[in-house]
């Protein structure tokens, strides 16, 4: 069964450094998402991406964040200058295209980001 994969599983970085979290969505999906979960808090929506552009972003997704689909298979989340409060589990998801209505999102296992 196809699944979403994410690398690395755990990333440790120093405050102020740039990090790139990588995701490989399910191959025929066209909608991509990033969510994050700070320890002890709810999973929160960050951004959705379709047709090579951001379709929606939350208040959390400020100028420090960016997303990219650099090739036909990867979807990345970049944090330019990490802060302590960026420490969280980051989940990538993808969903299929076609029709109106809700598209089931399929999630990866997450990348745990620790900012020191």
């Amino acid at each position, binding site marked *: 069964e196809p*699944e*979403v994969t994410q690398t690395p*599983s755990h990333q440790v970085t120093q405050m102020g450094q740039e990090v790139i979290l990588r995701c490989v969505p399910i191959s025929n999906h066209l*909608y991509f*998402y990033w*969510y994050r979960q700070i320890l002890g*808090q*709810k*999973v*929160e*929506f960050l951004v*959705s991406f*379709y047709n090579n552009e951001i*379709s*929606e972003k939350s208040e959390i997704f400020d100028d420090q964040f960016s997303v990219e689909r650099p090739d036909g298979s990867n979807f990345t989340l970049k944090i330019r200058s990490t802060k302590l409060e960026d420490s969280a589990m980051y*989940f990538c*998801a993808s*969903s299929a295209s076609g029709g*109106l*209505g*809700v*598209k*089931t*999102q*399929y*999630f*990866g*296992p*997450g990348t745990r980001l620790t900012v020191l």
Partner: protein
Amino acid sequence: AQSVTQLDSHVSVSEGTPVLLRCNYSSSYSPSLFWYVQHPNKGLQLLLKYTSAATLVKGINGFEAEFKKSETSFHLTKPSAHMSDAAEYFCVVSDQDNFNKFYFGSGTKLNVKP
């Protein structure tokens, strides 16, 4: 805005006994509702979804959930727990305004005792 409340952060049951994980939602419109499960070091796996068809939804691994509009609930049940059901379960809502955006509950950790 949409929101989801999972009433229990932890539930503990004995193997072979029923499971009930509670979820209430708030939504201005007819919502779409999902249950996901997360086993340790694994991704969020879809258990089942409700998208305005039958109110009783059957999912994988013997789980089911019933959409009750009058109670704004979407509780997850299973008649007989198995040790492999031990995991964290998330109730999720998406609304007609924005199908792409999911709102998560805080999660319920299910412990299954032998």
